């Protein structure tokens, strides 16, 4: 796929992730809602580490701040910190099997939620660890779809 095509695919993926993030859910479904924006960031960093790195993670974090109506900078910090890990490991991650990448995403989301809760403590918003495991499981469950989609997009180069 041409450079402009990849850029377009990235914009579309971020837009779809934003819309999915905004889909209203209630009750226990709220706990099961993955952080689609973070998953898309992780995906692009794994499969295009030379092009989309910490800067892209920080920009998407800014977008997440505005979507979540969170203090500006919170998700910038979170996405950058979490995005650095797949960036560092991207050389190996592309050779992992899908199952192993799912496991990697599972642990990464747990880490992300911990960091998010610690950041929220700065605003005295109560921490709630009970949902972290469910969110990580839900994120790992939707990861194969994102994984396959990004592999297909990047294979068309």
């Amino acid at each position: 796929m041409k450079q402009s095509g990849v850029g377009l695919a990235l914009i579309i993926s971020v837009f779809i992730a934003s819309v999915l993030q905004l889909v209203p859910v209630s009750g226990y479904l709220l706990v099961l809602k993955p952080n689609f924006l973070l998953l898309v960031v992780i995906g692009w960093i794994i499969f295009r580490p030379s092009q989309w790195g910490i800067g892209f993670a920080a920009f998407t974090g800014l977008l997440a701040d505005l979507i979540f109506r969170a203090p500006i900078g919170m998700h910038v910090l979170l996405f950058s910190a979490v995005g650095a890990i797949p960036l560092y490991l991207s050389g190996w991650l592309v050779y992992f099997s899908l199952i192993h990448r799912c496991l990697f995403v599972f642990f990464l989301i747990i880490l992300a939620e911990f960091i998010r809760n610690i950041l929220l403590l700065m605003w005295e918003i109560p921490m709630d660890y009970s949902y972290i495991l469910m969110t990580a499981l839900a994120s790992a469950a939707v990861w194969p779809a994102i994984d396959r989609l990004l592999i297909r997009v990047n294979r068309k180069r």
Partner: protein
Amino acid sequence: MAAHNYTNWFDPIENFFDNALLPAHWLATVPARFNAWGELILSDRSDLEVENTRLKQESLIHRGQIQRMADLAAENLRLRLLLNATELLMDSVLVTEVIGVSPSRNSHTLFIDRGTKDNVYVGQPILDAEGLMGQVIEVFDEHSVALLITDSTHAIPVQILRNGLRSIAEGTSDYDRLRLRFVSSTADIKEGDQLVSSGLGGRFPVGYPVGSVINIEHNSGASFVEVDITPAAKIDRSKHLLLVFTSEDGGEVGRSQ
């Protein structure tokens, strides 16, 4: 983050983005609207007739109750006049629809389809059919943002219906739970007590249902008890809400659209 917390430098960016995000909110609610449309199309005629009959009966009951309410309101007015009360409040309402919700678990906000064009103002109370939902915190031309009573940054003055005991109910970031602050361990409060807005602070009108007590935890040695409240309003389920306009001139009730 500190700049965002202590200054309003980012307000123009956030306001611009709130407006820009409206189409995304619309897209995000397409599945829900499609589902509602599908239910309507697929529903059986007999089911609709049964529902129509039930709604007619409910309407009849409510009209009867309103007549009783009108009688009580008139009596209340006479008593207030006798007591030389200086302020007589009557509320009118405007129906609004939820067009988006905050995707964050920690920020309990709603987007509603009324804005400055409908005279919505910051601090305006919002209700659903069951009780108080929250208040408007930002107003735009065509829409507004409302903070729910369950948000951890929100607090509302309340009183117990049974005995008038005053307290403050604050959000816990949990859609099903509020917490009462500074309730003395000797206070007359028990599970099942109904709480209504006390009107103190002037933000929320008096007497709207807020919730009911579900749990009281006594910690030995502590001066205050921990009281958990379940909100009366269907915080994360209600789609149609009421914006309350409080007026001191006794405006007409039922400015509904």
